[in-house]
């Protein structure tokens, strides 16, 4: 039987790769491989997963150098019999394939991503025109499940600790376009702060890496344009 050579990161910030040999199967994802190793060869390997079908966003790992969902990455798509699996980049490593995502989630908040409304549960639901420009722009982050793949793919995140990153800013773009959100100005101010949208160099790593094809690059460009108009407007007034 054909076998795969699987190199898995063991340790935290310091550590080394452990090599495993796993039978190659017709239908096999990276997550299947890690699970097989954990169950049959080395029970001490730590990794995260929950749904196994691309809904929860908890199994993201660096596979052959690229950040991806291990559950939705078929071994056959890697076109290699040697597979290197590391934790996501740009996050502190806790153990093996598990990273500390605290900073990632904190930045989510720092980008002004708190929905505010002046309505109560007694009010009727807001009527939002689905064909409006704003409503379409607000789509940007609706499908985002905070997996951290874009954050791991971003160079600016790796170079500048302050930078909020693509996921948080993508969400902020949705929020400033959400006509029900009453804290738009606060969100925009947070999103154009020191670690905000102006740090992005439009490299497009985030949108290339996103497993569901979202485009934080586009959203951040929108925020930049909005910050331009907002600051120019203020100077006039």
């Amino acid at each position: 039987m054909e076998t795969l050579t699987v190199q898995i990161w063991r340790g935290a910030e310091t550590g080394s790769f452990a090599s495993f040999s796993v039978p190659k199967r017709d239908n096999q994802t990276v997550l299947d491989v890690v699970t097989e190793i954990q169950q049959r060869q080395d029970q001490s390997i730590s990794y995260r997963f929950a749904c196994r079908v691309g809904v929860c966003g908890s199994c993201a790992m660096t596979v052959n150098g690229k950040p991806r969902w291990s559950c939705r990455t078929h071994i056959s798509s890697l076109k290699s019999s040697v597979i290197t699996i590391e934790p996501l980049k740009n996050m502190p490593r806790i153990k093996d394939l598990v990273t500390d995502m605290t900073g990632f989630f904190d930045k989510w908040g720092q980008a002004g991503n708190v929905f505010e409304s002046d309505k109560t549960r007694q009010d009727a639901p807001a009527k939002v025109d689905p064909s409006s420009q704003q409503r379409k722009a607000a789509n940007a982050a609706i499908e985002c499940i905070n997996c951290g793949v874009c954050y791991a793919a971003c160079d600016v995140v790796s170079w500048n600790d302050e930078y909020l990153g693509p996921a948080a800013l993508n969400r902020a773009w949705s929020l400033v376009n959400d006509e029900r959100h009453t804290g738009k100005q606060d969100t925009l101010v947070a999103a154009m702060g020191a670690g905000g949208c102006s740090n992005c160099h439009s490299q497009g790593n985030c949108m290339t890496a996103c497993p569901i094809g979202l485009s934080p690059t586009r959203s951040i460009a929108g925020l930049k344009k909005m910050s331009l108009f907002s600051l120019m407007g203020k100077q006039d007034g």
Partner: protein
Amino acid sequence: MMTRHRLTISYMAFVLHRLSGIGLICFLPFHFLVLGLGLEGEAALDNMLAYTDQPLIKLGEYILVILFSLHLLLGIRVLIIEWMPWPDRADGQGGLRAGWIFAALGIALILGWIFIDGVIA
């Protein structure tokens, strides 16, 4: 600075844009100094022009013309990405304007060739 997964075409465009910028910044003070020679009289400027008429310096100028054009065109690409509406392409990657990058490289090389052709002629 560079890791495997970042070797996309738009990443290469970013690196070229940045490196060309650094190259131009390094050249800028020398350019201004040469212009400033005019203060010492026409002869000083002519001496410098005569001095620069040697292959190694012409090669440097050729590289500068390419860096200058490249920085211009890749910069326009960034402005388009950030300020113009994004095309709705099925794969969602249209906004990165990959075609522009190849065009920028091509045009920069052509301008470099026109420069060197003018120098040799």
